[in-house]
């Protein structure tokens, strides 16, 4: 029953059927439309000029990707100037190995983590555990998911698939005390347990919502404060970021903060926005403020800051800061028709808006990323061959693109993926044939007329106007719905009389 929740899989159909038959999940998902999705829409409505803001963000992403190579080097230089270390990971295995090496060399035994989809993408937790290192997720939802050995089922609400009763049961067993199904009590119990972990952890691992090239600053957003504790309390901080997380300047950040909070939760501003620049600096050190652009182009707040500030030492925080920049297929996407997928800021708005996600939930998609953007990212990152159904798991209603703060053309990318799949010879050969023949019927007027004539004459008005069951591949339709019988006379037939009706215009 819980295997889809626990393990990645490629069985979209099986998992979605199971989801449809799980009443608690259906109840939780149906609330999304009036909670997160409604909050998201209301937040756009309440923000003057939100459309301009979204267009501006798209433009920044577009320009960033156009010179990503240059900006990434800027990131490296800036982070190093601020006393941090930068590593390049081509793929998930590289990234895991880098984290393990940092941990091993420093004798790390326990790691606290704040919520990071990138760390899920590289399957970091199992690797750390295998190396004998204890890993503790500190986001409340992720903490529960970890205790239940579940994968997160939503980008920002990882246990949206659970009820409060289930959470009480999981935490009671995990913490060895009987806890009531009350959200406040459960959160308090988790907080008490987590404080001790924060205090004793040897290393903190986070993702990064944004990486600012000019200053080498990473920005981490959270509502619980756990991210700030994760990156400041332990002596070592490791951040893992996809290379698409770069934004050029600190001045670009407020635009994305405004968009991310609204798109994710409908908030004007997330509770914690942590900006981390390098590690603890005992002595004074000049901050990396886009040295190459210093002077002429000085609109960024960082360059407007008093010089004295940039020379201040940083007396607390971790002793070491490590930033791992992850490619894992992204540079290949950069030059493809899926480039816009790199605009994604992982807010989850498309999941909340999607009629399919709201029925099947996140685990059905099989990979790390769920929902409409997951249906694009999972086949791109993990191979279309293994996930041939995901691009089809959409009615192409466009609600995702409307909800997306970056207006990512998800429906178009899904259609593109469908096209790419037809190039994989082993898939859908029968379908290619059916569509090919259908097209011939539409190009030949004679065939089309014969087809229409036959359909209306043979099936028109049959079965009292409604078919209760259909044959073959169409049988699924009539599980839940009746299918209308064709009309007895097509419009084409009716037109012969209609065209001679009198024109009796009123204007």
């Amino acid at each position, binding site marked *: 029953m819980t295997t889809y929740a626990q393990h990645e899989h490629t069985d979209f*159909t099986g998992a*979605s*059927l199971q989801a*449809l038959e799980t009443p608690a999940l259906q109840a939780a998902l*149906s609330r999304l*439309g009036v909670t997160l999705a409604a909050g998201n829409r209301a937040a756009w409505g309440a923000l003057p000029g939100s459309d301009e803001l979204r267009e501006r963000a798209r433009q920044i992403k577009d320009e960033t990707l156009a010179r990503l190579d240059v900006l990434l080097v800027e990131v490296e230089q800036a982070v190093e100037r601020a006393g941090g270390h930068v590593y390049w990971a081509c793929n998930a295995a590289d990234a895991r190995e880098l984290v393990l090496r940092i941990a091993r060399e420093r004798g790390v035994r326990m790691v606290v983590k704040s919520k990071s989809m990138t760390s899920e993408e590289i399957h970091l937790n199992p690797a750390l555990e295998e190396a004998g290192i204890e890993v503790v997720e500190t986001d409340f939802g992720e903490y529960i998911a970890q205790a239940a050995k579940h994968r997160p089922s939503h980008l920002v609400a990882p246990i949206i698939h659970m009820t409060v009763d289930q959470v009480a049961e999981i935490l009671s067993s995990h913490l060895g005390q009987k806890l009531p199904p009350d959200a406040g009590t459960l959160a308090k119990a988790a907080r008490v347990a987590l404080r001790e972990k924060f205090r004793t952890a040897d290393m903190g691992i986070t993702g990064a919502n944004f990486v600012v090239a000019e200053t080498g600053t990473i920005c981490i957003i959270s509502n619980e404060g756990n991210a700030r504790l994760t990156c400041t309390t332990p002596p070592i901080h490791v951040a893992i970021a996809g290379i698409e997380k770069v934004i050029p300047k600190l001045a670009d950040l407020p635009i994305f903060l405004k968009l991310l909070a609204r798109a994710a939760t409908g908030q004007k501003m997330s509770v914690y926005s942590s900006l981390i620049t390098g590690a603890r600096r005992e002595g004074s050190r000049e901050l990396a403020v886009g040295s190459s652009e210093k002077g002429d182009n000085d609109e960024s707040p960082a360059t407007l800051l008093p010089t004295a500030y940039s020379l201040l030492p940083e007396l607390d925080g971790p002793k070491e800061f490590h930033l791992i920049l992850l490619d894992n297929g992204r540079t290949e996407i950069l030059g493809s028709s899926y480039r816009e997928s790199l605009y994604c800021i992982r807010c989850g708005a498309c999941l909340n808006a999607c*009629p*399919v996600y709201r*029925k*099947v939930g996140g685990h059905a998609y099989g990979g790390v990323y769920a929902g409409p953007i997951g249906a694009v990212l999972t086949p791109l990152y993990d191979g279309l061959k293994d996930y041939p*159904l995901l*691009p*089809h*798991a*959409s*009615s*192409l*209603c*466009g*609600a995702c693109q409307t909800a997306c703060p970056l207006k990512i053309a998800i429906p178009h990318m899904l259609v*593109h*993926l*469908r*096209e790419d*799949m037809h190039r994989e010879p082993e898939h859908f050969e029968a*379908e290619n044939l059916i*569509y090919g023949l*259908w*097209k011939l019927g*539409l*190009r030949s*007027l004679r065939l*089309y007329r014969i087809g*229409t004539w036959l*359909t*209306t004459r043979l099936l028109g008005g049959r079965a009292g106007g*409604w078919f209760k069951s259909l044959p073959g*591949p169409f049988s*699924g*339709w009539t*599980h*839940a*719905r*009746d299918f*209308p019988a*064709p*009309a007895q006379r*097509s*419009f*084409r037939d*009716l*037109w012969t009389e*209609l*065209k001679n*009706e009198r*024109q*009796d*215009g*009123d*204007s």
Partner: protein
Amino acid sequence: MCIVKVALMITCLGDIFRPEVGVATVRLLRRLGVQVEFPDGQTCCGQPFFNSGYPKLAQDVARHTIDVFERAAVDAVVVPSGSCAAMVKVEYPELFHEDAAWHKRATDLATRTHELSDFLVNVLGREDVGANYRGKVTYHYACHLRALGLKDEAVRLIRAIRGIEYVPLDGLEDCCGFGGSFAVRFPEISGAIVNDKAQAIMRTGADVVVTTDAGCLMNIAGRLHRLGSGVRAMHLVELLQT
């Protein structure tokens, strides 16, 4: 009025399953002083091919459609279906972005093509089309209106009907779960989505639900009929032509 002559794009579903929608469209437009042609060579806009990832086949069908409607020599093409209108207006030019000659022809047709509620409200400037209906009506926003940038045109037309009681639908803009091949490939998911839609419609207490797309109509009406609901699912134009 600048536009005097339009061509009706009936759409393949409309031609076979809901010809009365075409009939109502022709009569309504004539009543508003518009001359209507029906170019007999038309078949399908090619949307099923495009959506299923067969752009070459879609191009082939699109060339046929462009050709047919060019020959009709009309001021505008009116489509009583948002999804087919979106195919022509949004996707046709994109389909031919590597073929300058066809791109121009596609763009010309796209510019002249209008979904019916768009044509009535934004081209003819009519909200009150002189319709009367005594009853309680709700309305489902068909997703492809979003692609066309249309918002409340249909609601404005409904509200202007004399004698009508309009009841807004919960989750008005939520997809009905049709999605063409989606409904065939994932009938259970599609069925669950349309069930929500049908339940929301029944909760309004309306006796009629209208929408602007043959696909949504087929889906919603099919579920309502299976549930034994007495709510009638109609195309907007059928209500406007009462």
